[in-house]
């Protein structure tokens, strides 16, 4: 059965209950909108994955991806929405909408704000960690070629609290060698 029809067959009654209107429907994606919320539910055939996005009804294009980590950290829920088969995804979607997401569907602005804040913070941390690991990789290269000046320069760009202890030691040694 087609993904979007499957979702509507199982979760349609919830969308009706919360006055969520379908504004875009394709075989593998469904976009719904209420006065407060935009919800996108999509299936990716190529990687056989399913995704739920939630966000306030505004012009901003980035909505919050509700994955397993968001469910656990923000909603304090053990439900799984990512890396599960379609059947499980839709079942869990219905459970999620009827329980954890109920205040959101009712238009709890504070909760939407908090969710966006959480997501932005997560995004920042993810990017920050990625940049730190990039810098550490570059520092490693400099260290291997005994380019201590470069090593120090790179590590100076990283907050010292983010440095693993071995790098702090190397940093000291590099300073002695320069």
């Amino acid at each position, binding site marked *: 059965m087609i993904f979007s029809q499957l979702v509507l067959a199982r979760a349609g009654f919830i969308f009706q209950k919360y006055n969520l209107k379908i504004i875009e429907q394709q075989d593998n994606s469904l976009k719904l909108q209420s006065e407060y919320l935009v919800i996108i539910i999509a299936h990716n055939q190529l*990687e056989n994955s399913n995704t739920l996005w939630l966000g306030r009804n505004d012009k901003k294009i980035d909505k919050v991806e509700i994955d397993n980590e968001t469910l656990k950290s923000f909603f304090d829920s053990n439900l799984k929405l990512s890396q599960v088969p379609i059947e499980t995804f839709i079942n869990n979607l219905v459970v999620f909408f009827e329980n954890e997401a109920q205040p959101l569907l009712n238009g709890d602005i504070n909760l939407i704000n908090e969710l966006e804040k959480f997501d932005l913070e997560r995004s920042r941390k993810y990017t920050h960690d990625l940049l730190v690991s990039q810098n550490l990789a570059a520092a490693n290269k400099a260290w291997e070629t005994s380019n201590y000046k470069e090593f120090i320069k790179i590590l100076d760009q990283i907050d010292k609290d983010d440095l693993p202890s071995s790098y702090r030691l190397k940093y000291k040694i590099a300073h002695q060698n320069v």
Partner: protein
Amino acid sequence: METENYYPFGLTQAGISSQAAGKMENNLKFNNGNELQSNEFSGGVSLNWYDAGHRSYDPQIGRFLQLDMFSDISYDFTPYAFANDNPMNFNDPSGLETGKPAKTDSTTTPGFENSKGGASNVLTGITVNSTRRYTVAQNLNSYTPDQIDWAVQSLLDNGARPEAIRNWALNNDLLNSETVERIYSATEPWSIKYRANLRSWDDAARKVAEFGVNAAALLIPGSELVEVLAEFREADALAEGAEAIEETAETVQSSEEGGLNLFKHNSAQAKNATGWKSGDRFLKMFDKGSPKLNWKQNSGFLRREMGAGKTIFDSYLKVDGTLQETGGFLNAERSLLQSRGWNFNQFLGGWTPPN
């Protein structure tokens, strides 16, 4: 009666030209009467170049012998190209600008007597004909600041690059200093936007607001920016960023064109209709029947793109330019890039190849 017949790029078809009859030579010929420098040395030795005013043109190779000084506005062609490599339809009598041969009609931009009102033709009008050049300069000098702004805006709307207009004004000794200054200030915002290669002014404002002036300055090389951004915040902080501006200039340059964009399937970012640059595209994928085979195909395509060594943009970003955490192929693509030493540049919104 003298007739001349030419091959497209200007070599004389000797057998059927009046040259064959051994008559007195008329050297003002091809390319709207450029002088052919022939027989200038004893013993019949010739350069056989046309003197196109600002450059010499060699019809034997169909190329100018000097660089096009306006090469920044005709970047589709080699700076040595003659008449956009299309001599059947165009010529270039001055060596400065390609145009339709001997065709004039009414102007669309007051003060610029040009053939089509197109921006590049304004430059032709200014540079080719000294009388016209004088008239244009006089007109501009007599314009009110608002009229100059309007004229500049017309040029920009017609596709002229702000830097080309500025260079022209700066090098034009017929313009008075007030006019040059006004042209400079009228092109300023576009110049910055052009240099910064920002997707929109909102983008610029957002970057300044989110990252502070220092970080935004990293994006945007050029001293003018420092002045403009100083209006947003204090100027001192900007001075510190000056060195970094230089360092990142090269990276920003490489992002003038769009390129490959990684995306999250069905996300709003990937479906957004605005904000794309020319050349932006996605990895093409064909369903091979299983995620494993699809990833094999996807990673193969991505590796091939990585081989080109160009910035690979990431479309799944938050408003502040940070990466939206995700799983699936996008996460795997990011991991592949990172494991091969590619670096995510938050200000470019993309992955740059290892040095």
